């Protein structure tokens, strides 16, 4: 059994086989999605959720801080994007910038309250703050449109110099999202395999020890929260573009729980790529099980429960174990794992 602090730190270049495989999958997705019977929009949705999940895993997997209210920052990003398009001007980069800024600011403020908490108290406070955002989205009707949310958010064109791309076409929009996703994933890779990521992992393994070594643990926890909120905000901005709307549902406790489920089932606790597997599995479950039965969430929930009990290191951990060469002597293998 691999332990929960098994995320390998590599350092150096992000040019690894896994990164190459991921890039290849992301780039070619539009060409095989439809032939295998899936639809174009699914690719966009999955890419956005992968971005959200991987940003969340900076906090959840690497720093070991369990946020149960992260849907809030996705929602803040989505609303910021929508409000920018509707109130300020129709601009792609302005909107995405506003989404990231708003979510970063929200994360930074909430992080101030959270960062000296630990364990379950951390999780409880994130739930409470998540609910505050969700509730505000419903009640600040004059800004957010209440329960209906913001509807008819325009999807601005991509303008780069003299080059203009109409993103209303889902294929073009997919490539735009994929480009942002790849850039973000490379950035996250560099972050977690650099000094910052090492400190986060040290905090996860033993906060007290990290503090005694001399790291300003509070500041690192705060930075990890703010950063993951920023990625959530970016994902939220793209989500508002994809849906052309922003609504309070994405901020609800259910949604925040889903991202935790995806990351855990995928194996975010032990692997950088775990969240990708988790998101894919969720959408496969939704579309395949959802096609068979109305109550697919029941089966997904049961699978999640079994996973928490038997294999908390998730799919990535399972793959890790299966791909390891079998040792002839189980005792020797166990000794090696320690």
């Amino acid at each position, binding site marked *: 059994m691999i332990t929960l602090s098994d995320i390998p730190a590599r350092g150096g270049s992000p040019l690894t086989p896994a990164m190459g495989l991921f890039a290849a999958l992301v780039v070619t997705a539009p060409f095989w999605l439809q032939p295998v019977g899936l639809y174009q929009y699914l690719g966009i949705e999955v890419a956005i959720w992968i971005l959200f999940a991987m940003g969340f895993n900076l906090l959840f997997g690497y720093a070991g801080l369990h946020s*149960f209210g992260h849907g809030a920052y996705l929602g803040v990003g989505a609303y910021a994007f929508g409000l920018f398009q509707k109130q300020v001007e129709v601009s792609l980069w302005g909107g995405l910038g506003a989404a990231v800024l708003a979510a970063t600011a929200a994360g930074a403020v909430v992080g101030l309250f959270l960062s000296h908490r*630990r*364990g379950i108290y951390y999780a409880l406070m994130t739930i409470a703050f998540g609910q505050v955002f969700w509730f505000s989205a419903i009640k600040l009707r004059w800004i957010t449109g209440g329960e209906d949310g913001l509807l008819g958010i325009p999807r601005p064109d991509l303008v780069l110099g003299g080059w203009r791309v109409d993103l209303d076409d889902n294929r073009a929009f997919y490539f735009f999202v994929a480009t942002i996703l790849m850039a973000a994933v490379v950035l996250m890779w560099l972050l977690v395999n650099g000094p910052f990521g090492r400190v986060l992992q040290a905090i996860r393994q033993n906060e007290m020890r990290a503090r005694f070594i001399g790291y300003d643990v509070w500041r690192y926890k705060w930075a990890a929260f703010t950063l993951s909120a920023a990625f959530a905000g970016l994902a939220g901005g793209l989500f508002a573009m994809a849906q052309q709307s922003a609504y309070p549902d994405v901020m*609800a406790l259910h949604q925040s*729980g889903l991202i935790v489920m995806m990351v855990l089932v995928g194996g975010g606790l032990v692997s950088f790529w775990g969240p990708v597997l988790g998101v894919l599995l969720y959408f496969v479950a939704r579309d395949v099980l959802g096609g068979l039965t109305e109550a697919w*969430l*029941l089966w997904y*929930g049961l699978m999640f*429960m079994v996973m928490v009990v038997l294999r908390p290191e998730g799919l990535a951990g399972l793959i890790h174990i299966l791909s390891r060469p079998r040792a002839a002597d189980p005792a020797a293998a166990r000794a090696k794992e320690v």
Partner: protein
Amino acid sequence: MFDLLPHIINGLTLGLLFALIALGFTLIVGVMEVINLAHGSLFALGAYFALATIGADWFAETPFGAWWLGLPLTARYVLALAVGPVLAGVAGMLLELCLRPTYGKPALYGLLLTFGAALVVEEIIRLVWGTGEQNLPVPQSINGAVLLGGMIFSKYKLFAAAFSALAILVVWLFLERTPYGAIIKAGAHDSEMVRALGYDLSRLRLLVFGFGAALAGLAGVIMVPIWGLRPHVGIDVVIPAFLIIVIGGVGSFWGAVIAALMVGLAVGITGAYASAWATMSMYILLIAVVGFRSRGLLGRKSALET
């Protein structure tokens, strides 16, 4: 001041109901150190089982159903008041069996497992009882309004508040005055020592979880005529419950009761003057209290912090 009085009374009534919900929650946290996110689902299960006991309209067409629905509502209601909590307690025990592998691991696993369980229970409720809003009928004798000291009160709310207060008292007496209560309190303090003294720890956990779940189910039967019954009522309910235990201090009995009354007052008074913000007042109270005392009002240091 006189204007405020009815709102204060309403708030305290609400607080007593909140306390009933939070009680099982805090008992489970205290003894098992499990944050049971499925507590709200057990609440909902209790209410749905009570609904089933009272009987649906389609039931009347079956021979037994005709006889059953012919019984006075009061009799069926009293039975529902017992059946709801008992079956919710059984469901809680099943959940405890699922939780066993997570003991000794970080508290996160219990939280995650019960979150999954909440999702599963909600889906089961949707499958069995449908997605629509339903209501639990209450007997004539506790329905309607009553005039007290120049103010009008809902009879049912008064009944619910009195019932909750009584239940809280009984639970307190059970914990303080019976040997079994002493074991539970000792288990909350140091479970290894309880095992060393020869008590069967896993049976204790099973019973405490069942008891906590039964309290959730009881709260469900009592609350639902006021709040209405829908499959996701569990999520709506679990939120105030754990805000209350965080404010009161995780694992503290009186902390939970005091926090519940505070939350009830905050919601009641805000509700009177700015009704849209009533729910928000809970969170503001939480952030204010926890900002000053990170363990809540009466909280002790616990294993949940690491």
